């Protein structure tokens, strides 16, 4: 039995990556499991021969161009499927992309909370241009944001902030690790009342354009982003 195929068969059946030394030990041990001349064939293989067989195998599998490769990761060798097949393998292992992936509107709202916390619902809606009730519900339910206080404003609306789970979910060490946190925090936000004065024409113009933004029936929050989008000076 050719050494490289013996090594291949071992790695193909292994449940964890193996180092050349571990492979050498297995080659040594095989005779204990089957008392045949073949089993003893590679009993005294040298480490460098194992290493060169591994390199040959890696190249052969690379050239074969199949859906998997033989990889050397930190000195241990393993077969692994190519990344582009991830969707199917995820379906196989039943790995939902963590609870269902956050929708774009949810991410958008979350980003606003993250950079502008603590923030009221009205302010979020003003930035996003659409109502946020639905996504807010999702985000609170998933524990990514929470009410952290009440604003000093008429009606004392709730102020929302991100939770520690939020940091975990995005693999952040802290809020300062948010990309360009400083810069984005300064993006001006207009106060809701301004909505009525800034560019009111947009609210009614171009009905034909609205056809291109048919988002609402497919999950928007009930008002179109199209009309309210212009940037205004910061009132803060």
């Amino acid at each position: 039995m050719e050494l490289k195929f013996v090594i291949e068969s071992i790695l193909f059946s292994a449940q964890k990556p193996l180092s050349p030394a571990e492979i050498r030990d297995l080659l040594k041990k095989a005779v204990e499991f089957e008392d045949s001349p073949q089993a003893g064939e590679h009993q005294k293989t040298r480490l460098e021969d194992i290493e060169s067989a591994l390199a040959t195998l890696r190249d052969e599998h690379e050239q074969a161009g199949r859906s998997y490769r033989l990889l050397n990761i930190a000195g241990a060798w393993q077969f692994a499927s190519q990344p582009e097949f991830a969707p199917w393998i995820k379906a196989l292992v039943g790995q939902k992309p963590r609870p269902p992936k956050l929708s774009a509107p949810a991410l958008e709202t979350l980003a606003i909370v993250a950079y502008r916390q603590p923030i009221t619902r009205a302010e979020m809606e003003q930035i996003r241009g659409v109502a946020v009730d639905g996504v807010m519900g999702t985000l609170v339910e998933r524990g990514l944001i929470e009410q952290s206080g009440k604003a000093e404003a008429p009606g004392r609306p709730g102020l929302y902030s991100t939770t520690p789970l939020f940091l975990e979910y995005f693999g952040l060490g802290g809020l300062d690790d948010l990309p360009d946190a400083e810069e984005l925090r300064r993006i001006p936000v207009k106060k809701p009342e301004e909505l009525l004065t800034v560019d009111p024409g947009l609210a009614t113009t171009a009905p034909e354009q609205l056809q291109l933004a048919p988002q609402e029936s497919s999950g928007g929050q009930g008002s179109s982003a199209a009309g309210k989008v212009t940037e205004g000076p910061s009132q803060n």
Partner: protein
Amino acid sequence: MSEYKVKFEVFEGPLDLLLYLIKKEEVDIYEVNLTSLATQFIDYIELMRELDLDIAGEFLVMAATLMYIKSKELLPVDQQVTPEGEEDEEDPRWELIRKLVEYKKFKDAAGKLQALETATENTFARLPAKPVFDHTETETRQTASIFELLNAVNSILKRFNEREDLRDIFEDKWTVSEKIETILTRVQTSSRLRFTELFSDATSRTEVVVTFLAVLELIRLKQIEAAQSETFGEIEITPGVAQTLNHAAELAAQQPEPVGS
């Protein structure tokens, strides 16, 4: 004694013993000398009896059949009579050979099954470790997250200062709807677009923001996709699922919600 017993147990039955005898003669079943075969078979039975072994009834039936065949063959050809109504297919010689041939095929098949049994025993199904996905890695690498998009927009925004922006508000002529249309056209014609290219000819902060919101909206509608090959790398815009599936027209036909608050 027990040695013999072991030896005889090797034969599954009279057909097996006959096959063994034929094999010893190294002749084809069809060409076997049945008379000599009968003699050898009966010798075996006798030996078994002398050794006081249990002889299965089947062996004795076969011995009788063989003796009948033998006695028939011992007659000269012209004296061989085919009893009335006994046609070729009932010729005991033929009947025996047919049985032997059939039995041999199954015996061979049993041998092949035995080889398969051994091979299967030595075949190990690959049981890979359960694949693990590094969540943050796949998400940030494959589809650009909102943070990466914001990050990108933010660096574009840096090109415009606050004062400029104040002026722009009042002369702004861009709507998200228009930008959506523009982006869709560009994506369809170039199929692969760098995120920053979408902003390359923006003349104001407002236009950048409007364009960005249009991008967000298109992503949400799955009309486009933003993907990043490496963290903090260039974001690429490609047609989305809805585009691919040609749902654009269908979506466009939907009734928009009333605008405004």
